[in-house]
C-alpha cells in the first residue's frame, strides 16, 4: 500500500472513532443533565410532576430551554465553590434566580424549594410569575409537590394575587377547590399596598 493511501485511511479511522464515540456520549449526558426530581431536602414525597404548559413547544426550543436550565442549575451549584459569605451568596443567588425564572420558572422553583427554609426569602423573586400563573402555582401547592414545605408557597401565592385585577381573582376562585377558593377570596379583602416599607431585600 502506498504511503498517501495509508495516511488517508488512518485519518479516516480517527474520524470514525470521533463519530462512533459521539453517538454514545449524548445518551450519557442526557441522563447526567436531567433536572432533579422534585423533593424536599429530606422526606421525598412522590407527587405527580407538574406538567409543562399545555401549549405545544417545538422540540428544538424545548432542548434549548433544557440546556439553558442545566446551565442555571450548574451555576446554582457552582456558587457553592465561590467561597462567598452567606450575604454575598444570597445576593448572587437572587440575581441568578431572576435569570433562571425568565427561562424556566418551574425548574428554578424546584431548586429553591430544595434549599433550607432559611433561604426562602429567595421565593420573593417569584412574585410576578405567581401572579401570571396563579392556577399552575395553586396546583403545585395543592399537590404538595414539595411535601409539607409546599405550604410555604401559600402566603406568597396569595400576595401575588394582589397584582391581578379583581375580576381575574374572582374567576380564578371559581375554578379552585374550597381551600384555594377561600385563600383567593381572602386576598380580595386585604387592602392593596398598605404594608409598610421595611428596607431592601
Amino acid at each position, binding site marked *: 500500500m502506498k504511503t498517501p493511501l495509508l495516511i488517508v485511511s488512518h485519518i479516516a479511522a480517527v474520524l470514525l472513532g470521533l463519530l462512533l464515540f459521539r453517538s454514545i456520549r449524548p445518551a450519557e449526558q442526557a441522563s447526567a443533565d436531567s433536572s432533579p426530581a422534585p423533593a424536599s431536602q429530606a422526606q421525598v414525597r412522590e407527587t405527580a410532576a407538574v406538567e409543562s404548559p399545555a401549549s405545544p413547544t417545538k422540540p428544538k426550543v424545548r432542548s434549548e430551554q433544557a440546556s439553558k436550565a442545566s446551565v442555571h442549575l450548574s451555576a446554582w451549584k457552582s456558587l457553592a465553590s465561590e467561597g462567598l459569605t*452567606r450575604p454575598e451568596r444570597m445576593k448572587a443567588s437572587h440575581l*441568578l434566580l431572576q435569570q433562571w425564572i425568565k427561562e424556566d420558572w418551574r425548574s428554578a422553583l424546584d431548586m429553591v424549594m430544595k434549599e433550607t427554609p432559611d433561604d426562602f426569602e429567595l421565593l420573593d423573586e417569584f412574585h410576578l410569575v405567581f401572579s401570571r400563573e396563579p392556577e399552575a402555582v395553586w396546583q403545585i401547592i395543592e399537590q404538595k409537590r414539595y411535601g409539607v414545605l409546599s405550604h410555604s408557597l401559600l402566603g406568597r401565592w396569595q400576595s401575588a394575587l394582589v397584582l391581578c385585577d379583581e375580576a381575574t381573582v374572582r374567576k380564578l376562585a371559581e375554578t379552585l377547590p374550597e381551600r384555594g377558593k377561600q385563600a383567593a377570596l381572602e386576598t380580595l379583602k386585604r387592602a392593596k399596598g398598605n404594608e409598610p416599607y421595611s428596607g431592601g431585600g
Partner: protein
Amino acid sequence: MPKALVLVGSHLVCLLAGGYFLNAATASRDGHGSAMAATKSGNREATATPGSTLAHDMVTASRAPLFDAGQAAKAATKFGKGEGEKKVHELTAHGTKEPTDTAEFAAALLAWFREDPNAAFAFMQAARAGNLYDAVLVQALKEMPLDDHLKLAKTLLESPAIFRVGEIMGERLAALSPAEAAAFFKSSGIAKYEALMETMIGGWPADKVDRFLELAMAMKDPNLLQMFLDSGDPRKQAALLVLMDSRDDLAQAFPNLPEVPAGLRGHLYRYADPSVPLDERIAQMKNLDWLKNATPEALREGALKQISTVDINELMKTGTDYRYAFRHGAMTADEILIAVKEQFPELAAASEYETRVRVFNELASEDAQAAYALIADLPEEQRINAVLHQSRWSFRHNSPDAFYEMINLAPGPDSATAAPQRADAWKSYAPRAYGQYREDYVEWVRELPAGANRDAARASLAAVLKQSNQAELAKEFEAR
C-alpha cells in the same frame, strides 16, 4: 507479524484515539459535574464550565452598584417640578415594581425625593420596594441635610416604616465626629424620640461602637449607653459593654452611671466578639441567673455550650457560606469542621466536643445523615445527648422533614434520661410547626412511621391542638 495485522492494529489505535480525544474534550467541558462529584473524596478541578462562568458573572454583577450614583445625582437635577414623580410612574406603569430603565428610574426617584421626600417615600412603601428603591432611598437621605432627614423621620414615629430611615440616620451620625454628632443631638432633641433612637442605634455600624461611646461622653448622658445596651444586635451591644469595661474614665464622665444589670452583663458576654478571651467570657457568664451558683466545671461546660452555639451560628450566618457549600457538595462536613476550628482556635482547644457538636448541628439542618459523620465516633450516650440536645434547643426553625431527620438520628428506644429530652424537643417544635404549616403539619404527623418520634410528635401535636381549641381533632393524636 504479518503486515496486514499491523495495518489493522494501527487503524484500530487511530479509531480509539479519536474516541479518546472526544471523551477528553467533553470531560473537560463538563468538568464542573465531575468536580462536584469528586468533592466527597477531596478531588476538585478548577475547570471553567458554562455554569461556573455564569455563577462567576452573577457574583460580579451582585457586587456592582445597581446604578451610577454620581450620574443619578447629576441627572436628577434635569427634572423640573413634578417631572421626577411623573417619570417614576411612567417607568413603572406596566404594573410591577421593576422599572423599565434602572438608571433613568434612579434619577427620577431621586429628583422626586428632593422635591417631596414624604410623597416619594410613601410611593416606595406602596410599591413594596426592593434593592433598587432602597439604594435610591439611601442616596436621597444621605444627600439631604440632617435636619430634613429628621423631619421625615418624625412623620414616621408611629409607623414601622421608620426602620430604614432611622437606620440610615445611625450610619450618618456615626460618620460624623463625636463633637459634631453631639451638636446635632443637642440642637435636634433627637434623643427624646424613642422609636427613632431604636432604629438609629440599629443602623449604627458595628465597627464604630467606640464613636457611640464618645458621643455619649460628649453628651454626658448615660441614658444613651443604656439605650444602646437595650436594643439591636446583641453582638453590637456586647461590643459596647466590653469597651465600657475596658475604660477607666467612665465614672468621671458619668457621675451617675448605673451598674449594668448582672443578667444583661452575663447575656452580652455570651455574644462578645471571639477576640475577647474565652476565659473572660466564661467568667462574665457567671452573672447569668442559671449559672451564678454553678461550680467552676459546670460554669465552664454550660458557658462553652452557649458560646460555641453563638460563635459558630454567627459564622454560618455572616461568614463563609459553609452550609451552602455542604448542601451542594463543595465541602465535606470534616472539611468544614477543620475550617471552623481554624477560625476559633481558642474554642476548639477549650472543647473539641462542643465545637464538633455545634458544627454537626449547623450542618444537620442541611443533611442530617451526611452531618452524622461528625459525631458517629462519639460514645453512644454522648451521641444521643448531642442529637437530642440540639433538636431540643436549636432546631425549632427547621422544616418538619429536617427536624425529623435530625431527631431520628437517635430513634430510641429511650433511656430514662433521654425520654423527657425527646418529649421536650417535640413540645418545643410542634407549636411553631403547626403555626407555620397548619393542616399540612397535621397531615405530616399522621404519616410519620411508628416509633418513639411518632409517639412524641403526636403527643405534642395533641397539646397544641387543644390549646388551639380543636379538642376533637386533638383526640386523634392523644395516646391511647
